[in-house]
């Protein structure tokens, strides 16, 4: 007895073959990415664009690893976008490197037709990769009315890993790397690289760094400090300087690694694992790319209340983060309205509040119309937060993404692979 006797004869086979053919053919013709629509929109008047965005949905890919950030986006930004512009904001989880793969796959499978998402949270090496693969739409950012408020004098904002973001990504926040310690366990934390090495040797098994983005930022900062300052690494990638800096870093690491947690035979997978180890007293330092994460994580109960941030005198890496519009954004108008809203003084102020996120503003605060400068000045600083001038004095810019790429590769190959 046949359940579906007629379907089976050849029909299914043909259907299967069609699926196979369709899938393979999808990526066969590789056209230049269609960057037009965001660009075209940028040429028209802003009011037209806002009108076009009304009633649409913007899907925004972002890192969703922090409940504080999620709450800011979901509970503060989204309702206001809906209320003021009639745009629904849906934030979805995706980290930079994954976005590149997804967009490449979308292009291979669908060519220039509409993709899934309209806005991307990116910076640094992801921006470089997206540009390399021509996956970003632009230029469009100069059309944002709020772009005029951005602090054009800050090298950290105007250069993203030494690349010119002009037109292809819009800044929306700034963070600075900091070590986190417990003031009860470590009343006098080290504040220089040599002091840190001495502290590690004096406290075997109490220090480590993770093997993801945060850990690498820590290593890059060390490389600048040990390699003669960030200036030596600026102005493009230089192989010889890199090797010199890397060797200095690796010999420093070799000398302290035996005193690392688990004697440096293994590293925590990510910063969440670092926080867990720190909170339970397995290690005495954790770290963050955001100087204010200590404040939000204490509030969330993830870190002990006596946690504090500390910077190294050799300087710590500060970088800005941005939003970009992919080449195949289904809703570029909505994405641009959202990017503009993120640059508004009220959105930037809310974001900077310690109890919200503690993310640094990218606006030129003194140049803002009243009453904004006063309001930014009034942002209550938490006991655990570092003062603005201290941060500024220690901030070091990012350098060419190739340093990042090479260092990660070499660290995995040399330092991680071979314990002792």
């Amino acid at each position, binding site marked *: 007895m046949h359940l579906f006797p007629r379907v*089976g004869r050849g029909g299914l086979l043909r259907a299967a073959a069609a699926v196979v053919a369709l899938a393979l053919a999808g990526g066969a013709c590789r056209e230049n990415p269609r960057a037009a629509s965001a660009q075209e929109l940028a040429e028209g008047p802003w009011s037209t664009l806002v009108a076009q965005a009304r009633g649409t949905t913007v899907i925004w890919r972002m890192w969703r690893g922090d409940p504080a950030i999620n709450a800011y986006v979901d509970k503060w930004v989204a309702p206001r976008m809906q209320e003021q512009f009639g745009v629904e904001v849906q934030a979805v989880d995706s980290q930079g490197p994954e976005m590149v793969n997804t967009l490449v796959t979308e292009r291979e499978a669908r060519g220039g037709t509409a993709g899934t998402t309209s806005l991307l949270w990116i910076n640094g090496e992801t921006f470089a990769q997206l540009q390399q693969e021509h996956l970003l739409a632009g230029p469009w950012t100069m059309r944002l009315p709020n772009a005029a408020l951005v602090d054009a004098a800050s090298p950290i904002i105007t250069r993203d890993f030494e690349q010119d973001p002009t037109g292809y990504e819009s800044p929306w926040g700034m963070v600075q790397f900091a070590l986190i310690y417990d003031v009860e366990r470590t009343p006098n934390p080290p504040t220089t690289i040599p002091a840190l090495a001495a502290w590690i040797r004096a406290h075997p098994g109490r220090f480590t760094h993770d093997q993801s983005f945060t850990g690498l930022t820590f290593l890059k900062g060390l490389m600048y400090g040990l390699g003669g300052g960030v200036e030596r690494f600026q102005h493009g990638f230089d192989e010889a300087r890199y090797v010199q800096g890397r060797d200095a870093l690796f010999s420093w690491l070799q000398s302290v690694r035996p005193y690392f947690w688990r004697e440096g035979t293994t590293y925590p997978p990510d910063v969440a694992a670092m926080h867990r180890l720190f909170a339970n007293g397995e290690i005495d330092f954790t770290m963050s790319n955001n100087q204010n994460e200590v404040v939000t994580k204490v509030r969330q109960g993830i870190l002990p209340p006596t946690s504090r941030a500390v910077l190294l005198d050799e300087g710590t890496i500060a970088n800005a983060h941005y939003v970009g519009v992919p080449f195949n954004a289904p809703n570029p108008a909505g994405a641009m309205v959202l990017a503009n809203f993120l640059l508004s003084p009220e959105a930037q102020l809310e974001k900077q509040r310690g109890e919200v996120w503690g993310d640094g503003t990218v606006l030129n605060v003194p140049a803002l119309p009243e009453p904004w400068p006063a309001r930014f000045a009034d942002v209550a600083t938490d006991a655990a937060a570092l003062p603005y001038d201290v941060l500024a004095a220690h901030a070091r810019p990012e350098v060419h993404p190739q340093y990042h790429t090479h260092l990660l590769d070499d660290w995995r190959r040399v330092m991680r692979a071979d314990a002792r």
Partner: protein
Amino acid sequence: MTRRNVAPLAAVLLIASPVIVGVAYTILAALGLRGAGASELTVRHVAAALGGWDTWRGVGWTLATAAVATAVAAAAAFTVALRVQQSPLGRLLAVLPLAVPHVAAALAALLLLSQSGWVSRLTHAAGLTPTPADFPALVYDRFGVSLVLAFAWKEFAYLVLTAVAVLGTLDRASDEVARTLGASARQVFWRITWPQLWRGTSPAVIAAFAFLIGQYEMPALLAPSTPTALPLLIYERSVDPNLLRRGEAYVVALLALTLCAGLIAAHGIWRRRLPGVTR
């Protein structure tokens, strides 16, 4: 091909088509023709991935942890299945881990077995381990102890389910006959019950083993940085900041697929040679 094979073959192909296409794409990407950073036909990715010591170390480590975990799970599952067959409470308890997602099981392992985990706190309270560092490293450790236990915990439930089902189909009369033919209770178990239980459950055991080779979430939370587990290697390479190296991810993915397919095929061949196995 005979006519009666056409419809079934078409149905099977249709269901498998996404995976067939997927494998085709993976091969193209491994050869540098698809994916981020793709440009031209090259064996660079293949050479880099297969020539790398860390790949083979990861393969070995992943196979070893998966094998040990499967062995532990199977031994525990058989022991329990033989004893709780008749106990509804026992059966319900045994299959509980099926309901717990892998991420959750990994989180539980972290909370339980890390050096500052619950077990460590108990030994601390008992005065055995003054500090977390005195507790043995079971998480992110070279031997993958917590990973093996978490794997085993999840697969245990699945194997109990299978073993109880197989035991239910066994002919109890043959045990009695074997007794009167002169076999002791122990001999009956090892010569009659066990071979039949094993042949009934071996596909499930192999499936569990192959599944663990590709399981991502648990190693992501519990495995050490070196050796790097196979799924973590795939992920790490697929998001490498150097776009030119992402092709290696597809090579390692193909390697994982081949391992799984090889295991299943080898098991199929072994099984066909057994007496009394028709399929």
